[in-house]
């Protein structure tokens, strides 16, 4: 038993929850368990059927009496699987005769009617205890959950009968009418109110349904009992706590050296005190490293043989079954096709939506080409649309008396420069107010005070037709902050 390989969540549960755990375990391995049950009981059933063909009631009784054999196989499978081991069919097959012969007189005759069978059988089969040890261990384990076990014992046969009748009902429902003369005759002959004379065919059908229902019920109720057994052991042996400690040790193991150092420092007084009392508590702290290494290595975690054997087996199977090889090749082909399809799709998408990336690249590259707005308020603001010496052109226009055009040129020239040099993002739909706000947000590089002054003059000129004085215009031209070219 390897606790760290356990494949169910161990925690102390209530009795009914442990039954649910058992049912969940049975569900995981249902087909295996059921086939095993049938494997153990099948030959015997055939034998009984041959001997007792004319007495279906006795046949049913004998199968019912010996059903612990099937339960034994279910228990074998569930317990191996719980601790992370999947027994091979060969091993399971070898287990069948043992399931019949192990303590036959006790288990299948004397203690057959014990309601605690799933737990005591686990003690006998899984723990291998006999005699006095068996008795004491069983008593100890039955302190918890014996009530539910008794209920289950009664319920298992009750429900098996109940669902046996359900199956029979299903058979009657699904049997095509008038197709099978024998069956139809038997059904017509059958008078349900008279229980003493049921036609043999009907009786055998009912018996078969009962057997089937019994096998299913027994798989689940055995698993329920096993759940109780596991839960009881979790309680009285602290399996969950041990697992928790193991996980903790694994985590802390990484800083083992540091901790042991700390432990030695922190508890040295404690240890010496105990040493004076003659205790043996401080001995482990001084153990030789070789001893520790040997102990660690003796842990089952270091066994590697099993892994090797499994690898060999799987390669064997690959060779022996041609079908597996073909399937493997087919799978590879499918994988390659799928991958190439995905690659093709991605490439096609990239090509189809390349403009997205082109635009993103432009936005990223910044400076040189930023046509955020080519036209603002109906005025072209690209550098190419402006005269080389802007302020001179503005002044010339002003002198000619075309004041509106002069200020418009100055304003759009300023916006063009603000876009170009100040890196201000101005959109085509922006108003003067928006432009001013953006320039102010851009900071000193865009010269917000000048822009504000110009904007006020421009708005008065454009919308209110109030012309500024000559001095104002010449000052605006003189103070134009983007005019390196003229200075040079």
């Amino acid at each position, binding site marked *: 038993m390897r606790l760290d390989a356990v494949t*169910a969540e161990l925690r102390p549960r209530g009795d*009914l929850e442990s039954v649910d755990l058992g049912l969940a375990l049975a569900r995981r391995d249902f087909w295996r368990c059921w086939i095993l049950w049938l494997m153990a009981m099948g030959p015997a059933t055939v034998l009984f059927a041959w001997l007792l063909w004319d007495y279906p009631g006795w046949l049913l009784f004998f199968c019912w009496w010996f059903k612990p054999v099937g339960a034994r196989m279910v228990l074998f499978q569930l317990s191996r699987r719980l601790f992370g081991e999947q027994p091979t069919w060969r091993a399971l097959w070898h287990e069948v005769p043992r399931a019949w012969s192990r303590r036959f007189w006790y288990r299948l005759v004397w203690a057959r009617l014990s309601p605690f069978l799933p737990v005591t059988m686990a003690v006998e089969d899984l723990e291998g205890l006999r005699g006095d040890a068996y008795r004491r261990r069983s008593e100890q384990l039955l302190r918890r959950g014996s009530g539910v076990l008794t209920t*289950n014992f009664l319920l298992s046969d009750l429900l098996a009968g109940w669902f046996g009748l*359900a199956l029979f009902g299903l058979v009657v429902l699904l049997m095509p009418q008038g197709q099978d003369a024998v069956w139809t005759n038997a059904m017509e002959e059958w008078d349900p109110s008279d229980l003493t004379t049921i036609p043999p065919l009907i009786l055998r059908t009912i018996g078969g349904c009962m057997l089937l229902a019994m096998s299913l019920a027994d798989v689940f109720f055995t698993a329920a009992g096993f759940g109780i057994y596991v839960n009881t052991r979790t309680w009285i042996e602290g399996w969950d706590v041990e697992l*928790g400690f193991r996980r903790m040790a694994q985590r802390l193991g990484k800083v083992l050296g540091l901790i042991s150092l700390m432990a*030695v420092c922190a508890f040295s007084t404690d240890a010496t005190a105990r040493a004076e009392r003659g205790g043996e508590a401080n001995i*482990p702290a001084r153990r030789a490293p070789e001893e520790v290494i040997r102990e660690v290595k003796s842990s089952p975690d270091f066994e590697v043989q099993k892994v090797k054997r499994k690898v060999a087996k799987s390669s064997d199977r690959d060779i022996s079954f041609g079908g597996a090889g073909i399937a493997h090749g087919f799978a590879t082909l499918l994988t390659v096709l799928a991958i190439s399809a995905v690659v093709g799709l991605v490439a096609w998408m990239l090509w189809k939506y390349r403009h997205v990336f082109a635009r993103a690249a432009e936005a990223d590259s910044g400076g040189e080409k930023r046509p955020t707005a080519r036209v603002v308020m109906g005025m072209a603001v690209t550098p190419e649309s402006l005269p080389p010496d802007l302020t001179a052109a503005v002044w010339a226009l002003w002198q000619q008396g075309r004041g509106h055009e002069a200020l418009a040129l100055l304003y759009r020239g300023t916006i063009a420069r603000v876009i170009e040099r100040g890196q201000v993002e101005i959109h085509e739909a922006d108003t003067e107010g928006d432009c001013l706000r953006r320039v102010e947000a851009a900071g000193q590089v865009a010269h917000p005070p000048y822009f504000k002054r110009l904007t006020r003059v421009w708005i008065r000129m454009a919308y209110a037709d109030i012309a500024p004085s000559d001095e104002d215009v010449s000052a605006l031209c003189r103070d134009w902050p983007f005019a390196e070219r003229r200075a040079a």
Partner: protein
Amino acid sequence: MSAYEAKVDTLQAVELAEGVEIRLRMAGPLLRLAAYLIDLCIKTGIWIVVFLVMMVAGVALGDKVTAGLLALIGFFMEWLYPTLFEAGRWSATPGKRAVGLKVVQVTGSPITVGQAFLRNILRWIDAMPFFTYGFGMASCLATRRFQRLGDLAAGTVVIYDRQPALPVVAAPPPIGAVPLPVGLTADETRTLVLFRERAGLWSAGRREEIADQAEVLSGARGAAGVARLMAMAHWVQEKRQGGGKR
């Protein structure tokens, strides 16, 4: 067999929208059977009362009216008895409530009227063949959350509503308290406390075996390790919390 296989468990973790994980304790078929039988008894009781009343009233009303009324009452009781109770404040029929079960959505929230109606309409499918509940039982055993067909259709589960108090059988209290030498995660601290609280159930030898697993923490094996772990658990439970209060 893969090591990554999910462990079998009767709890199902559900992550809520807030990122909090809760665990629903799925209830298996046995207790639900008990709840069903209790409900059956209650319904039978109601039927007996109704029949007695109708026998008296039938003298005045006449046979046909009585038969019609009985059919109506039967109809409403079969369809509405579970639906109304499960959609109501209890989220459970009286039988379920008596044994401590509750119907909730798969996400853990209370079920709606529509879901209650759906899962109880499909009860008639689950009850097949011939009201033996064979289909319901098969579906219940075959699904991870013990859902019958009605549950699967409505997206509901039946969970344990009451958490039974797990007995604490603590070992004799330790003499001193030893602070933890390293920081432990919440799970690890809980394990340490569980070790103390359940140690009374274990034999001395088993205690040492378990404590040996935590040698990294205690720095000692055998009885000394047990004593040190107990002292640490004592510190975690008493001293550290006391320090927090001060």
